[in-house]
């Protein structure tokens, strides 16, 4: 047992108390304004901290690569054979889909249907996870200086990963599609029923507000509807595993398995949709429309 002298100068204690009270009042009275101020001021600090973050992430990635390349190769031959079989099946499906795509292109041209605009995408690397335990989020190695802004959609070739919620000069925080606080507009690909996709506390996702008369069933794929947020229509989100219909409810909901396992994602694509509001535009007063 050791004896330690913990006494501090009396004035420091009073100063701390006064500072704590002022800051707490500020946090409670002006939360949004202070949030914006600290986010703006913290942007260059985020750039500085991103360097050790990238360094540690690089070392960790190197160790993980070494492990997966040389040590964890047991069963690779069996996996290779399985993948070859799957490849053969996919080749067959691919030729059918090419035919269907060609037919769609011909019909689209005939109807003079305006195709959906595709936004440019920028690749980014995952360099970390959320520093807290409350949200499921990942950190990207690119930020405001690369044109990233809050609400931009983040995807991989397999499907939707999440959306950006916070940026610094050199990093971005992406809230995953499996987080219960996330909401993405989606639709059931087969039935075209729209709804809102939220994460669940068990790490899956849920499509809410499906109409009661919908014939959606397990196995149906859910894609982005493109109506709200930074996602164009048709990006894969997940597959329905269960439909929940409670008595007296106005809507049904469906449990999904997301297409992307966010725990294994290393590289992502950020959709640079041009029509999103900036942080200051969102927190500021709405602009008055000018009369023509």
């Amino acid at each position, binding site marked *: *047992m*050791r*004896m*330690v*002298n*913990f*006494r*501090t*100068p009396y004035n*420091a*204690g009073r*100063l*701390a*108390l006064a*500072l*704590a009270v002022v*800051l*707490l009042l500020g*946090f409670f009275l002006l*939360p949004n304004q*202070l*949030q914006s101020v*600290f*986010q703006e001021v*913290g942007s260059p*600090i*985020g750039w*500085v*901290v991103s360097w*050790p*973050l990238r*360094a*540690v*992430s690089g070392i*960790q990635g190197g160790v993980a690569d070494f492990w997966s390349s040389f040590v964890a190769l047991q069963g690779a031959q069996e996996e290779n054979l399985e993948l070859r079989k799957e490849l053969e099946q996919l080749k067959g499906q691919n030729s059918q889909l090419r035919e269907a795509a060609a037919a769609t292109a011909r019909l689209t041209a005939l109807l003079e249907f305006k195709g959906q605009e595709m936004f440019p995408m920028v690749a980014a690397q995952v*360099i*970390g*996870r*959320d*520093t*807290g*335990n*409350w*949200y499921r*989020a990942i*950190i990207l190695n690119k930020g405001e200086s690369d044109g990233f802004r809050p609400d931009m959609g983040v995807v991989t070739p397999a499907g939707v990963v999440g959306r950006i*919620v*916070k940026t*610094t000069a050199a*990093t971005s*925080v992406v*809230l995953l599609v499996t*987080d*219960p*606080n996330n909401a993405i507009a989606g639709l059931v690909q087969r039935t075209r029923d729209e709804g809102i996709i*939220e994460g*669940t*506390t068990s*790490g899956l996702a849920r499509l809410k507000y499906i109409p009661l008369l919908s014939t959606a069933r397990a196995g149906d794929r859910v894609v982005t509807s493109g109506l709200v947020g930074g996602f164009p229509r048709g990006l894969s989100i997940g597959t329905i595993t269960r439909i929940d219909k409670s008595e007296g409810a106005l809507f049904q909901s469906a449990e999904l398995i997301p297409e992307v396992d966010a725990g294994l994602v290393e590289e992502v694509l950020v959709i640079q949709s041009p029509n999103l509001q900036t942080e200051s535009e969102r927190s500021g007063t709405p602009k008055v429309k000018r009369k023509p």
Partner: protein
Amino acid sequence: MRTLVIAGLIAGLIPIQSVLLPHVAVWGVMPDLGLIVVCLAGFFGGELEGLLVGLAVGWIMGLFSAADLTVGMATKGIVGYLAGVAGRHIVYMTPVVLVLGLLAASCVSSLLTALVLTLNEQQDLWWALKTVVLPQAVFDGAVGGAFYWLAWSRLNIERFVSEYRT
């Protein structure tokens, strides 16, 4: 000099918390090294230092989290201040006292966060208690206690503490 050391410590804390600790997470919960640092700064440095370090750690960690910046700053600042107040009244510091202190501080911080954050309807207070607050408090106490015991038994922490406080 002390400010530089603390700034360096915080800058080093983020990669460990964000890159390495997710690998040791149990049921998706990992210890909050920032909170441990804030508590130790409060214990050894007093209220003002605890508050300032808490605000700084909460701010920088908030930049790399989806949580509101101000919530992290407020909770860690309060915990740092309370650790400073507790430090004035504790005469004998043992690993057991530190573990219990960290357990309490972690519970206070997490409960404040759960109450202040606008969490989803699925995430009620009971959910927060059993999935985040209590597991994280146990983790924080264990990691902080182990660190303190290691520092006390292997390093000359008494000299470090007296130098830190002068």
